[in-house]
């Protein structure tokens, strides 16, 4: 049984005048201790998927269909209090904008101590000492003193370390990292990625890593899911996906990573056009309007996710025919 199983998830924002279908029938699994990358551009539904897993969809967002199982238990069936005990303890979150995620008027240490107080039976003093320990563990020097500081007194990298410290506090089975390095410069990025890898090797936590940047996740992830317009268009082991990308969208993404080897290209290839409006999705393939291999049938027929190798699946008409 996988650690996390997202099964046919459909989430939508029900506005008065229109329905924005942000996530449409997404299914995937994360095994214990596995690092899975969820890749997609802005508006592809990756953040909504994550918010659905934690049941923290902002209003008027609703989970319309599907199941989200953690060790076989459907999170959508849990009571509010049961769900609260899952958040931060079994599934922890690391966010992109650490400064905005930290309360500006409460010392850093107290915000980590709050996690211990919410999930374990400890006294305030013990929780504080544990929080200081967590800060030390994510590599913040003079942690006792630093714990009394406020978020704005920390550098961007230290803010992100603080958020990771809060996430690791209760040894979660799954860490969801939503673009945790986007706001950081490259050297700090590497330190944060190393910290996440360390969490996996030391605590055995699985990681669902959300990003719009394929290059960043290459070395981190065991497996990659590519999302486009609210659905998964290709998934497979990182190596396979990089060696033989099948979906034209994945191929386009890979082509747009600047290379340090080989010929210097004058122009970096980009995928033309914009993703479709989630309030008015096309009936056929959602990538058809931007695809270089588009055929007549693509605009009418919505392709299924089909297997094209071991653990490798793709949602494209070009590969549907090859399967029996």
């Amino acid at each position, binding site marked *: 049984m996988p650690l996390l199983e997202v099964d046919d998830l459909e989430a939508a924002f029900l506005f008065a005048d229109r329905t924005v279908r942000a996530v449409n029938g997404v299914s995937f699994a994360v095994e214990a201790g596995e690092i899975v990358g969820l890749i997609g551009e802005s508006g592809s539904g990756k953040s909504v998927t994550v918010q659905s897993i*934690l049941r*923290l969809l*902002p209003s008027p967002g609703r989970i319309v269909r599907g199941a989200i199982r953690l060790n076989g238990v459907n999170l959508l069936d849990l009571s509010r209090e049961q769900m*609260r*005990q*899952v*958040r*931060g*303890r079994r599934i*922890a*979150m690391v*966010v992109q*904008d650490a400064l*905005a*995620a*930290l*309360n*500006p*008027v*409460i010392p850093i240490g107290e915000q980590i101590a*709050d*996690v211990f*107080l*919410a*999930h374990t039976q400890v006294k305030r003093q013990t929780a504080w000492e544990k929080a200081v320990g967590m800060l030390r563990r994510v590599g913040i020097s003079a942690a006792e003193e630093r714990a009394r500081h*406020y978020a*704005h*007194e920390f550098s961007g990298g230290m803010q992100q370390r603080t*958020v990771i410290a*809060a996430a690791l506090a209760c040894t979660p089975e799954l860490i969801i990292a939503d673009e945790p390095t986007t706001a950081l410069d490259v050297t700090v990025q590497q330190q944060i990625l190393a910290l996440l890898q360390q969490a996996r090797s030391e605590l055995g936590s699985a990681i669902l890593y959300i990003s719009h940047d394929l290059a960043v996740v290459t070395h981190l992830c065991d497996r990659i899911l590519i999302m486009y317009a609210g659905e998964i268009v290709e998934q497979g082991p990182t190596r396979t996906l990089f060696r033989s990308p099948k979906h034209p969208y994945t191929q386009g993404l890979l082509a747009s990573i600047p290379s340090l080897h080989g010929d210097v290209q004058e122009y970096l290839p980009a995928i033309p056009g914009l993703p479709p409006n989630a309030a008015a999705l096309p009936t056929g393939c959602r990538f058809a309007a931007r695809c270089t291999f588009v055929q007549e049938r693509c605009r009418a027929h919505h392709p299924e996710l089909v297997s094209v190798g071991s653990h490798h699946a793709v949602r494209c008409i070009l590969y549907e025919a090859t399967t029996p």
Partner: protein
Amino acid sequence: MLRYTLYRLLLFVPLLWGLSVVVFVYIHLIPGDPVQAMVGASASQEFVAQLREEFGLNRPLLVQYVDWISGLPAGDLGITFRSRQPIAPLLLARIPATLQLALAGLLIALLVGLPSGILAGLFKNSPFDHLFSILSLAGYSMPLFWLGTLLMVWLGVSWKVLPSQGYVPFTQDPLKNLQYLVLPAVSLGLGLGPYIGRMARAAVIEALQEQYVNYAHAKGLRMRTVVNRYVLRNAMISLLVVFGLNIGFLLSGQIVIEELFNWPGAGRLIVRAVLERDYFMIQASVLIYASIFLAINLLVELLHAYLDPRVQLK
């Protein structure tokens, strides 16, 4: 914090000086001769000239200003025009009554406005929030003198449950004093309460949209912790700042209520000074009220700096 406090206090001195200049210039820029206005058009020219001489109004403006301001540090606010009494003791005698009414009114306003505004903000778009919006808008739109008159007529005149006019010092008869206090304080509180309530609601809604509140939920914190430490703590800080900026509402409302309920506070003294065209009294009162306004804002700023660690850096 100590450095910041000293810095703000030091800054307060030139601020007060600037205020005195504005008040002085403002009073003296009013067109027409103040003495003529005070004694009326029928007075003889000789009488007017004599008064001008007596009050030193023939001297250059700068000399008059220096004369006025040099008395201020010692608490000399000048003398009234009609009775020729020193102004400072007159104002000072009114302080207990004014302070009592202001604090009681503020307390009622906070008791009415804070809990309802916070609840409305936390449960935005709930039936309670809609009810709150309607009631607070009604209270907010109702002029203070009208609200006070209604209460006075119902509770004081028709049902005769409370005295509607007058004042007894607390030291003389505490029970009577409180009876007299109820109507003006409730009027002031109900006038100011919806104002505070709406500010509190807005502050809570703003805080609820912050990412750190969402992240607090993602950490699995209990609802109580999220509301107290993440939502309210931040909302109350911004409420404090907005409240400081709007303190003039309380000060001006107080003058109206004092006049309406015959409450012998400093506000009534000002109203009388205006009616009698006592320029010296007006000048002194405006200076005092403006100083109180600035002092409260200073207090709010210091409190803000104490509560919000980001302030002292700016």
